[in-house]
């Protein structure tokens, strides 16, 4: 340990070097609790899940299993294909998840931009409106699924009442049970819940824009719509892109909302719901892990795309 009197004297070169190595060693020591925790909750469990996907493990007894190769994924037996990749329900879940992701993220982005542009204007009570749009974001997904489940109730739901009063529908609709509507009901609730996130991130980007471009455009008398597409949108695009990718990754792993709103219905089943059903309800850890592993690789690919786009940010570190 150095004291004040040591510092006043010139430090020899070798000593300074060791101070630097000491500092680096300290850095790893400070990192170690976080690294160990992440290894225990993320790294190791992921490897085990991938490992389980090649076995016939059962939830009741996780110690007793046999290696069965790729049988959980795809196997040809007695003239029939078996495994996750041969299960029509899995492909249904993939299709549902992709449909959900594309439609809900597009709608959220569109509405988010509108809300952000509105909130970017100066008006009385803006802070209150911003607080109001934070409410859907803060409400637990389970609670919003329940709240909407009641609003979408086929007999006593208020949404049917509103739509019937407005004349959109002639008779009550079974939003969560009707095969052609239940996915739209799920998307509606998700859009309600996550548009605030999109709006706030877009608003933050809008508020960082330089005002001189706008003054120049105003002086030149350019129509506001044109200014939006030629100036605003290109300038907020990078931030918007990051927000979109965040949402896409989140939407691809959707579970709670679908599970509570429509339970295990095949019409809305997402990849996460499918994997959990196999894993927990059917107790088939091997098969469920195979589905989880596939989902992981889908998301890993998207993450790589995100990291590639976010590379610029990393370079600033």
């Amino acid at each position, binding site marked *: 340990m*150095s004291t*004040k009197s040591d510092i006043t004297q010139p430090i020899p070169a070798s000593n300074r070097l060791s101070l630097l190595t000491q500092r680096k060693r*300290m*850095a*790893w020591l*400070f*990192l170690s*609790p*976080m*690294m160990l*925790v*992440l290894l225990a*909750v*993320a790294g190791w*469990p*992921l*490897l085990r*899940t991938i490992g*389980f996907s090649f076995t016939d493990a059962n*939830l009741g007894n996780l110690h007793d299993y046999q290696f069965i190769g790729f049988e959980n994924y795809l196997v040809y037996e007695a003239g029939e294909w078996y495994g996750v990749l041969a299960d029509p329900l899995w492909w249904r879940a993939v299709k549902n998840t992709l449909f959900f992701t594309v439609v809900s993220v597009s709608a959220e982005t569109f509405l988010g931009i509108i809300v952000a542009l*509105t909130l970017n204007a100066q*008006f009385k009570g803006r802070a209150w*409106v*911003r*607080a109001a*749009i*934070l*409410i859907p974001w*803060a*409400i*637990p*997904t*389970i*609670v919003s*699924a*329940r*709240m909407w489940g*009641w*609003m979408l109730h086929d007999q*006593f739901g*208020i949404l049917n009442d509103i739509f019937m009063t407005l004349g959109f529908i002639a008779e009550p609709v079974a939003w969560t049970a009707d095969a052609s509507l239940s996915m739209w009901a799920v998307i509606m609730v998700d859009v*309600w819940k996550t548009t605030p*996130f999109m709006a*706030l991130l877009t608003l*933050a980007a809008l508020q960082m824009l330089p005002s001189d471009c706008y003054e120049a455009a105003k002086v030149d008398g350019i129509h506001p719509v044109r200014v939006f597409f030629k100036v605003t949108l290109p300038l907020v695009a990078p931030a918007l892109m*990051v*927000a979109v990718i965040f949402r896409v990754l989140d939407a691809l792993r959707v*579970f*709670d909302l679908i599970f*509570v709103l429509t339970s295990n219905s095949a019409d809305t089943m997402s990849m*996460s719901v499918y994997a*959990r059903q196999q894993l927990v309800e059917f107790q088939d850890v091997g098969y*469920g892990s195979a589905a*989880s592993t596939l*989902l*992981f690789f889908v*998301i890993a690919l998207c993450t790589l795309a*995100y*990291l590639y786009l976010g590379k610029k940010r990393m370079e600033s*570190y």
Partner: protein
Amino acid sequence: MLTKTFSKLLLRVAFWMLIIAIVVFSTFPFYYAILTSLKTSEQLFSIDYFLTSFHFGNYETVLSQASFIRSLGNSLFVSTLTVVISLLFGLTAAYALGRVEFRGRGAVLLMVLGVSMFPQVAVLSGLFEVIRWLNLYNNPLALVFSYTIFTLPFTVWVLTTFMRQLPKELEEAAIVDGASPIVTLFQVFMPLMWPAMVTTGLLAFIAAWNEFLFALTFTLTDDQRTVPVAIALISGGSAYELPWGIIMAASVVVTVPLVILVLIFQRRIVSGLTAGAVKG
């Protein structure tokens, strides 16, 4: 001239209509949940847009259920402990990542970012095994342990960003005074990090409070559950006999603390969300 002022007025009206639409769209479902929770079970079958009844029976039923109170306690315990652990480990990691130049720092940051993208279901079976092995199955501590998978990466990421913005001179002065790294971190940096810690702590608390998949999978009995699971599992005789009044009362009880937190700390939450995603 007249048409110009008229179109200006029209634009103003349209703008305020848009604002009203945004506010109604955002708050109506929560308002409707409160309205429903104050109805008797007979009143549920008539559709009302405004408060007509102040019947607190649903709240009495919910709050007199020992298991629901237990669930509230579990949620509070799990969320608080998750926040404390995430902040503690996040702070030490952010110090190393934000203040020291060392080889492999970029790789560690990438790994942290990668973990935050993990689909929870991808670690479900592996985590289940670890939790069984730690003997934590059907124990709220299992949830504290597993929630760090999403709270810790986020905390590290945001705290590192804030840590990098602090002036270098502070640390140099501490080193000259002979302070050890631990003392530097907790006595020099931590007092300055409070705003960032409040923000990340709040976001971690909300994330832990709202989590469902792990809570559903790693707990089994009513007395070990957290509130989202308790609410999801409230059921009646059949799908058509769900006790909606009670479900809404429980939902309101669980959501009101969050809404209050959000209203008080809205500025902090917005800055935390944007720091986590946009500024990175």
